[in-house]
């Protein structure tokens, strides 16, 4: 575990501005004090840590889902490395003391790994062909029957015959109304984005942007969708003080840029503060 670093607010950054003229030294002090005062009012990192943990868990799940299907040599190499009892994946065997290696780098596949990957691919194709023949012979061409089942929040099979795209995107906000809230009070809005994906896709990454101020600025983000997944959720929050001029909260909207271009409806908490 790393040692705790001192908060930069406590650092004087000695040496950065040695020999500063007297008239600038007072300004340096003034800025240092203002910076410390300003940073003391920042929110705690607890919520950020929670959000990050949730995102990492989600991405890990998606990565696991992908790695369990893809016979990529890098994935096999990674599995081999980890199965060998190494406590952490290492990027190199020549690591020096004091240096840690964080995560498995994609390596040049060895011949054996290439062979295993090829064999796995052949087996997968054979399995898929057998399944297709079985369905065709015994069930006619009704394979796509499940496409008529728009159930959300579940996997609809992992056939990759359907191109990966976003059909639609929903956006909701909680709380949905600020009517009755006092102006000047602090609020946190939680926006939930729900992406709808056709069933039977191979999964992929959705790139999108969201705006919280009616398009004046936007935030890029992305989520990973597992094979067969038909809905995917993403949550972001906005905190602030309800101003007397009612300029916050503003209109929020999500714009999917890839793999397809889709825009959500515009969302804004109803009512005004008083």
């Amino acid at each position: 575990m790393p040692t705790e670093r001192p908060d930069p607010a406590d650092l004087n950054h000695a040496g950065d501005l040695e020999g500063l003229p007297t008239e600038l030294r007072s300004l340096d002090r003034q800025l240092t004090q203002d910076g410390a005062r300003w940073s003391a009012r920042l929110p705690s990192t607890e919520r950020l840590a929670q959000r990050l943990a949730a995102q990492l868990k989600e991405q890990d799940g998606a990565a696991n889902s992908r790695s369990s299907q893809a016979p990529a040599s890098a994935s096999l190499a990674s599995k081999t490395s980890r199965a060998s009892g190494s406590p952490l994946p290492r990027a190199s065997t020549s690591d020096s003391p004091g240096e840690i290696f964080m995560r498995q780098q994609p390596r040049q596949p060895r011949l054996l790994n290439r062979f295993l990957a090829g064999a796995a691919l052949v087996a997968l194709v054979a399995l898929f062909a057998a399944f297709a023949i079985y369905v065709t012979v015994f069930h006619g061409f009704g394979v796509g029957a499940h496409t008529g089942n728009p159930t959300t929040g579940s996997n609809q099979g992992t056939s990759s015959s359907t191109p990966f795209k976003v059909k639609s995107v929903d956006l909701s906000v909680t709380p949905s109304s600020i009517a009755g809230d006092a102006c000047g009070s602090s609020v946190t809005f939680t926006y939930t984005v729900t992406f709808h994906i056709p069933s039977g896709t191979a999964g992929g990454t959705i790139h999108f942007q969201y705006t919280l101020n009616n398009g004046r600025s936007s935030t890029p983000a992305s989520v990973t969708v597992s094979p067969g997944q038909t809905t995917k959720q993403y949550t972001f929050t906005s905190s602030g003080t309800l101003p007397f001029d009612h300029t916050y909260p503003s209109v929020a909207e999500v714009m999917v840029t890839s793999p397809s271009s889709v825009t959500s409806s515009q969302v804004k908490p109803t009512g005004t503060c008083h």
Partner: protein
Amino acid sequence: MTEMAEQADGERYAAVIHPHLPAVLRVAAALVGTADAEDAAQEALLRGWQAWHTLHSEVALHSWLLRITVNVCLDWQRGRFGTQRRLVEPLDTTTGKHPLASIDADPGDSLHTAVMDLRQALDSLDANSRLVIVLRYYAGMDASEIGEALGIPSATIRTRLRRALGLLRMRLDGSQDVHNSGETGKQPDGVEGMNHEGEIHAH
């Protein structure tokens, strides 16, 4: 086994970066404002996770995270939806959306006035000068970290800091003169804030 290892990777990343979260959040808040800071910090940390395999030494972790955060925040400011506005508009102290806009002293207090003058003067600086001052005093980064984040030698950063402080001093003195002459609210020298944004992009 593999899933557990993957899970452990994510958990380990979260644990390793945990001590650095305050610094990341502070940098984000200084650059994109407190309202957007968590979102920007989250995006930076996720990008860090995606690029984690490129980091080989934990010694460099802090600077590495701050560099990613600064880049994400600068991208954020240059966003698609006309966010040049964020760079050219003066500090908006009423909405609290602009970086460094939150004032914690009581209105009318002399401290409040001094802080307002200071931040207004800071806003009137060119983009490069404002950026180095914000990163050093508000984001809490030293010259080396700023240099690494911006891809500029730390000696250059120190020079820019000195020059920026000198400019800020002049702005404050000018502001004082304006206040004394009763023309409150007028920007000294007619300088538009952050109108040299291309200078940052050039690096």
